[in-house]
């Protein structure tokens, strides 16, 4: 089944994106090429729904991705015809199309200059600011991207998406503490986002297992990773990613058990080894249930990502074989 055009397509697999962009001719044909904004037209029943514009936008993204430039330009033209050239969102889309068309670094530099010019006129144009940062990142100028992001967040600290991007940039550069701080800001803005909790758990785990960590930080990070994963499961029943992370962390903890946890005021300390063991068992049981049911294509269990299920199975198999090797 083709995914809906009403949702942003950035997380789709290439195959699904192709499917979407193949819908382009039909969508473009079935809707009128220009919708005038005159009051007379509004009286007629030819309805202009917000959905249509979201569709165009998503279609534009998918078409750009699959290299269908003609359809992409058509979408853009219609959006421009409706919202005008100085709509911030349309400006960002226009920049996006230019970026996609750019052949070499020189052209990218030119686009970057254009962005700077736009921002010089109006320094609160957030979509363009974001495009500029994305372009900087795409051109491997990470520190610049990070500093621009920090500047953006300086005047708009309630933008969860930007915080999340900042966390990602820091993470790529290996600056775990900064990444964790930024991710915590996302949580402050969206306290119940289970995937953000899980992501933060993953970051803590990465921070703990990074080479050259002090043992105090290691314990603290591991403890918080367990807690974050547990919270993500608490927020979302049968959350594969949360259980996977929990399993990973507890496995690691059980492997290098024996180190007594230091109690420190105000910070999270590792739970005792019995709890860790029980958590490990719980995660194993849940993971195997999810794998079993999802592989059997049981009704109501088909929503998991195939790759994630495969990874979970790999983790369990690996552990089982390791256990067998020890017994032998």
């Amino acid at each position, binding site marked *: 089944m083709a995914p809906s055009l009403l949702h942003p397509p950035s997380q789709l697999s290439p195959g699904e994106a192709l499917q979407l962009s193949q819908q382009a001719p039909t969508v473009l044909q079935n809707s009128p090429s220009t919708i005038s904004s005159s009051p007379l037209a509004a009286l007629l029943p030819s309805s202009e729904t917000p959905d249509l514009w979201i569709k165009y936008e998503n279609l534009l993204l998918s078409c750009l991705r699959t290299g269908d430039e003609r359809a992409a330009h058509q979408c853009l033209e219609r959006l421009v015809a409706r919202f005008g050239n100085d709509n911030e969102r349309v400006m960002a889309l226009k920049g996006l199309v230019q970026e996609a068309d750019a052949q070499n670094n020189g052209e990218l530099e030119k686009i970057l200059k254009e962005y700077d010019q736009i921002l010089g006129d109006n320094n609160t144009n957030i979509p363009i600011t974001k495009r500029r940062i994305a372009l900087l990142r795409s051109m491997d100028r990470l520190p610049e991207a990070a500093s621009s992001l920090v500047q953006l967040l300086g005047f708009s600290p309630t933008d969860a998406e930007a915080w999340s991007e900042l966390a990602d940039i820091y993470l790529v550069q290996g600056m775990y503490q900064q990444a964790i701080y930024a991710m915590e800001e996302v949580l402050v803005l969206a306290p119940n986002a289970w995937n953000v909790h899980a992501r933060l758990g993953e970051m803590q785990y990465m921070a703990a297992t990074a080479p050259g960590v002090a043992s105090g930080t290691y314990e603290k990070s591991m403890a918080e990773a367990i807690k974050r994963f547990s919270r993500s499961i608490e927020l979302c029943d049968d959350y594969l990613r949360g259980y996977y992370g929990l399993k990973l962390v507890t496995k690691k903890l059980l492997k290098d058990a024996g180190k007594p946890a230091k109690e420190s005021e105000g910070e999270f300390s590792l*739970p005792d080894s019995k709890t860790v063991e029980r*958590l490990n068992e719980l995660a194993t049981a849940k993971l195997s249930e999810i794998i079993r049911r999802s592989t059997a294509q049981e009704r109501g269990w088909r929503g998991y990502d195939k790759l994630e299920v495969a990874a979970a199975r790999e983790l369990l198999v690996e552990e089982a074989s390791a256990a067998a090797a020890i017994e032998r």
Partner: protein
Amino acid sequence: MAQVPAQTIHRDPQLFGWILLPITLVMILTGILRHYASVLLQTAPKRLDQKTMREQRSLLHGINVRGNFHVLSRPSFIARREALTAAYESGAYLKDPERRGQPPANPMSDPSSMEGMMGMMKNQMAMIIPNTLIMSWINAFFSGYVIMKLPFPLTIKFKSMLQAGVATRDMDPRWMSSISWYFLCIFGLQSVFNFILGDNNAASQMAQQMGQMGPQTGQMFGPGVDPDKQFLGEVENLAVIEHYSVLDGVEQRLLEGINV
């Protein structure tokens, strides 16, 4: 149980064509006109400059931290609280730090707030003027007689509503005067406008009334509110938080709550 004989009043059959229909038509047309008038009068929302945006969003950020402090661990919450408190107290986020401590500017002299008031005035005018005009038109031409009989019986309570302008004590409430028909149209044409103009059109007076009742969001950053005071208030709110984390004991909750 003798039936009260039904009142019969002989009406000119042309009343329907010359009064009822015109009033209805005029009402619908003015509704549409009002919609487009208010669309034309609407000024685009004023673009915030960077400093104003920073001021508002920083405050919102503080409110978010205060509301969702439980997702943070204690050290990271305390770090945030200290940073926010220091910035708020020093006035780092203020739009123009030099004006700290001075009384807020008179909203009448501030052009940006004047604009907002003008917008409200325009909307009000677009409502009031046509309504007054039509009402006086109806009063001048059609008042003083009944124009139709409703096809269903009504209790005596409806008399004042339906027979405005016709002062007869004994008349059956089913008879209706023109001015009452006008009022019925005001309140009853809502769905017609929704059908013609689409939802949330400007002609919907109900929405406007609701908007007047709950301007909570605008109030927060409205003119005449001293942002410095808001920041200082937020500092106090942050200071009194007794921190606890949702992560405390989450493993235990998980182990107890989930059965495999």
